[in-house]
């Protein structure tokens, strides 16, 4: 059977899939080890952390949908028998948001507006020219009398959806409750009471409330966004909500792939330096002192500038703008990785120096266990909690760093949709009269929720895994 599209694997897609496989594998491994599970149990009990986790999973699902890429098949032409594909690379998310993506206005329009933001010279049906705010092509286009109908229309749409959404959510809550009461052999009434009071082992109340909130917001915003521009449109008339949603993947990629890239180096070098000491330690220390002595932004700036020149030189190597932007994104992760592995490496070196003197390592040496096995079976498992803490702590910092770098001009490709690029282009809009505030607001909200969720979750992870913080 032939599909009317061609699956396209971008480089970052591959890395994301690899990361997904690793995370799932790690989760499977942990789930079978009781003592590794214990800290996670502690996290499971914390309502804030679980709310954050729900939000993170929501972002993650958006990001993953945006990571399945393909190109549409073009209609067959007579001139060539071979299949032709559209050069534009689309993602699953694009298909889902087709309405948003294609409802392009001429230029700025405010959130929920029915008319453009700027006056325009238009020719009336009678041939007279006048400067008016023209009706938008898509935003509120279904309204006959926008001035009077807009708010009633909005309210009825929101109300209808909200009632419908709450209904579904309540049914969902009941279903979860029944499943849980089955599983724990607790009568449904008792289970309900426990869940409402937040006395369950897992913080179900927080999970369900957050999930419900997300569901209702999506349920209302989804259909509404095809009729109105919820966050307005930007200078070229693109729907800002669409841009903000597309920015999710960029943020996630920067936050996660960077760690994936740096982790092997940091772990291998850090443990080697601490374990072997002497010359190897000197060499590794020299390496990371040298790299860390270059101010991070400058190193990234230099590297990205060089990359730009290189890409310009070899512009033909990239099939599409998307691929080009993708390579640049991957390279940015790489160079961010180079600047951010040093902290973890230094910490692992220090910890290994301590661990290698531990009596169980000495005992293993006395039992003739080889160096390699000591490093992989005695040191590594006992520093993994540090690695995990570092990974989750780094995530939010990297998402924030993307915005800064894009502002400085050494971030992701200008053609790539990212929150940093949104902020960068929206910066001058604040100077306009009246102010164009919605691009900035959208980027702010999307970024804030992600970073806050990541921070709250990483706090919980750190508390659960750092033995020094026990009982505090």
């Amino acid at each position, binding site marked *: 059977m032939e599909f009317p599209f061609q699956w396209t694997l971008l480089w970052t897609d591959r890395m994301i899939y690899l990361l997904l496989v690793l995370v799932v594998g790690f989760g499977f491994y942990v789930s079978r080890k009781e003592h590794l599970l214990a800290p996670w149990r502690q996290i499971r009990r914390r309502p804030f952390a679980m709310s954050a986790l729900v939000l993170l999973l929501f972002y993650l699902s958006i990001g993953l949908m945006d990571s399945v890429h393909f190109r549409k098949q073009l209609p067959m032409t007579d001139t060539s028998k071979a299949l032709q594909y559209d050069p534009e690379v689309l993602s699953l998310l694009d298909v889902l948001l087709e309405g948003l993506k294609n409802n392009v206005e001429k230029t700025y329009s405010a959130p929920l507006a029915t008319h453009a933001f700027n006056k325009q010279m238009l020719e009336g049906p009678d041939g007279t020219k006048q400067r008016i705010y023209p009706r938008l092509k898509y935003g509120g286009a279904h309204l006959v009398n926008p001035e009077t109908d807009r708010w009633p229309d909005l309210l009825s749409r929101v109300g209808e959806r909200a009632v419908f959404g709450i209904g579904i959510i309540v049914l969902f809550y009941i279903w979860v409750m029944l499943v849980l009461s089955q599983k724990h052999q607790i009568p449904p009434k008792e289970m309900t009471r426990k869940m409402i009071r937040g006395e369950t082992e897992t913080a179900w109340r927080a999970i369900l409330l957050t999930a419900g909130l997300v569901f209702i917001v999506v349920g209302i915003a989804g259909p509404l966004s095809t009729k109105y521009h919820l966050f307005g449109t930007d200078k070229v008339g693109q729907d800002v909500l669409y841009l903000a949603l597309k920015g999710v993947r960029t943020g996630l990629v920067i936050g996660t792939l960077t760690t994936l890239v740096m982790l092997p180096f940091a772990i291998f070098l850090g443990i080697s330096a601490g374990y072997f000491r002497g010359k190897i330690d000197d060499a590794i220390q020299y390496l990371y002192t040298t790299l860390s002595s270059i101010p991070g932004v400058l190193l990234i700036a230099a590297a990205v500038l060089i990359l730009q020149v290189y890409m310009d030189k070899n512009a033909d190597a990239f099939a599409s703008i998307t691929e080009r932007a993708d390579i640049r994104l991957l390279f940015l992760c790489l160079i961010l990785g180079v600047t951010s592995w040093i902290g973890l490496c230094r910490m692992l070196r220090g910890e290994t120096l301590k661990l290698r003197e531990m009596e*169980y390592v*000495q*005992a293993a*040496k*006395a*039992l003739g266990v080889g160096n390699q096995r000591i490093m992989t079976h*005695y040191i590594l498992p006992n520093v993994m909690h540090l690695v995990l803490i570092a990974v989750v702590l780094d995530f939010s910092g990297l998402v924030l760093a993307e915005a800064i770098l894009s502002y400085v001009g050494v971030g992701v490709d200008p053609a790539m949709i990212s929150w940093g690029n949104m902020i960068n282009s929206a910066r001058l809009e604040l100077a306009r009269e009246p102010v164009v505030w919605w691009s900035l607001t959208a980027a702010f909200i999307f970024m804030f929720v992600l970073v806050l969720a990541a921070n709250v979750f990483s706090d919980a992870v750190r508390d659960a895994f750092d033995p020094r913080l026990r009982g505090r």
Partner: protein
Amino acid sequence: MSQSLLSIQGLKTWFSTEGGIVRAVDGVSFDIQRGETFALVGESGSGKSMTALSIMKLVPQPAGRIESGQILLEGEDLCGLPEVAMRGLRGNRMSMIFQEPMTSLNPVISIGEQIRETLEYHLKLDAKMARARAVDLLDLVGIPDPNRRYDEYPHQISGGMKQRVMIAIALSGEPDLLIADEPTTALDVTIQAQILDLLRRLQKDKGMAILLITHDLGVVSEMADHVAVMYAGEIVEMAERQAFFENPRHPYSQKLLSSLPGNKQRGEALEIIRGTVPALNQVFLGCRFSNRCDNAWERCEKEVPQWHSLETGGVRCHLVDAPEMAREAEKLQENISKTGDVGVSGMDHEKSTLLQVSNLKVHFPVQKGLFKRVVGHVKAVDGVSLKIDPGKTVALVGESGCGKTTVGKAILQLIPQTEGAVVLENTDLSTLSREALRQRRSDFQIIFQDPYSSLNPRMLVGDILKEGVKALKVEQAQDDDTWMDELLDQVGLTPDAKDRYPHEFSGGQRQRICIARVLAVQPKVIICDEPTSALDVSVQAQVLNLLKQLQSTYRLAYLFITHDLSVVDYFADEVAVMYLGRIVEYGSVESVLGNPKHPYTQALLSAVPQVDPKKKRMIIRVEGDLPSPINPPKGCYFHPRCPKSMPVCREEYPDLSVLSPSHETSCFLYSGE
């Protein structure tokens, strides 16, 4: 009866933890009179330190709180006092010193300042007067050259000195009550003797009462007027010292006393208390000790024993009501102790030395200057010779920093030796290549001090046992894993331990796992590096019994590294006393411990607190601390601290004097012999 200085009534201090409420102190009552020493004895986790912190109202917040009870200081209830009023009492009318002098002083403030601060706060002295008084206090606690020391920082002085500074701080408010929480546990015996001496002297001069918290019955016997034994958050027995040691009433106290190792028990198994202290996050329905008590009968399980007041104290045990049960139990116990007998080693006469260490030296370079030139060496081990026969135990005794652990690691080739030979059955281990050494490793093994850090927390016990077998390719009798079950059985663990992680075991059980791990590779000699010093007395007895029994089964040779002379007396065949990297006295246990010749050995022996209250011992005071091994004193290393030093001692290091075939020492006192 006149009013007690301190009267505790029904004190309960509870902690909320994730595992529920832990009743660390659960209904403790006792009185302390002016000027007396009241000892609170118990194993770790018995709640004795928490009792002390409760009195000071320094229980760690917010997890812990004083649930109920009264703490009356001369009739005034401290529990009702606001924090501000408590501050006026702390460090003033009652003071406290802690177990770890190393960490209890602020590292970035000079010791003089730390004393002066208290003086200024409580006595409202001005800076100049306070300084003068602080110097006086330093002098009082026996710190030489107090004017200079005043400006020194804690890291510049030794552990014993730090504890003296702690005492000086505690004394600055002229307290009526001094709470000493394990004041000497972290210190060496000779330093311990100095500190205990100091406390006694100060008590006599100042007339203050001391609440002494300790696990060491020897210290109790030397210091206390009254003794209270704590177990699992309760006081189980209280008595005057003499009465307590002569006739302990509670089965737990009896067991504690009889599980102490020593000369008398040589060749027999030690009395043990089976099991471990129960977790305190439960409500007890019966006696807390019942699961470990040989005397227990049903009543003990079902009914909480009440406090029975006796002439000089009291006891919390059903036996007081039902003395006839004790007799039954005694019979039972005799049977048990007979079955628990261990074989006596030393029956074989063939003299083939298993391990011979000759002139072992381990020096660590000291680097200095611009290019890190080596300017000197830390002579951690400086010419040690030993030999161990199969089935025998040689004890290596010395204070911390004398290099005894380094000897152990150097024998195992875990650290490179600078000089000398370690010959195991005619092979010098130090000349072997890495691979050849690896193949021999199964013959010599090590057991470490801290059972908590000597097992990889991320490995199953089964994998831990297999680790050495795999690495060294040791042949086991069975191909499958049944050898592990047998091994675990041998060290007193059940086979299901294989599939569990180390953190699920208690300290004593972990030490058993460590022993099993070593046994799995079928060694000939085991270096035991303080294997019992991190354990409570009752658990120590269990482990010592096990080691003894394994020795007779497998004819194992032990090099037993320890600082505890009573364990040596019980356990070892030969003993080597180490001082500053060298052995000063070497010989059979009977001759060295029974008739010590070297002044250091004599001092060491005399400093050990004795449980027997009648035996008055002469303490040979050793002044000062262990010198630095970078720069040992010229001549005999011990001469600056030696009470018998002669001019010649300052000039050269004494040669070995052989006193008898089984006794030799390095001292000029015997150089003619």
